[in-house]
């Protein structure tokens, strides 16, 4: 068993960071904690400080203002840690991908372990993404490719 797998055998506790999000993704994260979706039955719960957390759940396109705080939060989270980008903004910058006030996505600031796109993602999608980060379920997305010359030969 790999060391990372062994460390994450216990319940994972997440710390939710809003890095300039519009609150859409934050509401969906809170939805996932309600009795209807109930992530706490898997031991996933929100904690109040990054020092207790196993995973950072980051939403938003990372504004210039929040960058320094985000790096400090990342550094104060104990190793091993997961960084989960929730929403289209954190995944690729969203519709603010090229504005002056944002850094265009989380990957420009922190090493990201898993991306959960969606605007906002459904609570199920967040649940699925966290489960995929823990290696419990496989990823289902695949790149769609097409070339006309190839299809003409077939």
């Amino acid at each position: 068993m790999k060391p990372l797998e062994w460390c994450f055998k216990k319940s994972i506790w997440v710390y939710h960071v809003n890095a300039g999000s519009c609150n859409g993704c934050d509401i969906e994260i809170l939805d996932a904690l309600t009795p209807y979706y109930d992530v706490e039955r898997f031991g996933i719960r929100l904690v109040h400080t990054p020092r207790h957390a196993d995973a950072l759940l980051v939403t938003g396109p990372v504004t210039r203002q929040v960058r320094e705080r985000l790096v400090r939060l990342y550094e104060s989270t104990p190793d091993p840690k997961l960084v989960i980008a929730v929403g289209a903004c954190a995944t690729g910058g969203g519709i603010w991908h090229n504005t002056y006030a944002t850094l265009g996505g989380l990957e420009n600031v922190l090493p990201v372990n898993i991306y959960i796109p969606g605007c906002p993602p459904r609570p199920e999608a967040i649940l699925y993404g966290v489960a995929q980060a823990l290696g419990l379920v496989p990823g289902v997305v695949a790149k769609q490719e097409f070339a006309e010359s190839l299809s003409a030969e077939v």
Partner: protein
Amino acid sequence: MLKHTISELKEALICLEAGQVTLPYPFQPHPPEGEFRGKPVLNSRKCMSCGACANACPARLISIQDNGSIRTLSFNLRRCTFCGLCRDACPQEAITLSSQFELSTVTPEDLSIHAEFGLVNCRECGKVIGTQRQVALVKDKLQTCEPGFDDTGYVDLCNSCKRRAFIHNPALLMEVKA
């Protein structure tokens, strides 16, 4: 004391009445309802790479590039907001929004669509006119419309060459007027 016990019993009864509310989601699939907009899917048979979707996309994630004799249409779905404007803009109805929502991925390159189409160059000057499918569609429409045009030889000319051809050959112009 008794009052307290009674109120607790009442709460227990209410809980019994509510039953189980939690979704059995990870163990049973929970498909979205109605007109849910999930991951966009390109029907590569219908698409003729006209670029209407690239114009409509608010996140500017659809790009069209001409390179040599190939036009590349690529979607970077990482920042897709699933608004459906590309679907509405598509004249060929080639883009559909599937109900797939479990899009989490470790490698963000998975969230993309990449399609290549052959280009047609002007017969005279070599300027790019459009994709092979666009030209074929125009030819098809010209032949099937009322009144039909049988001579579609000028379809693979660019605008300026077409104008020149019409000036040098007024018979063509007459045919178009009819």
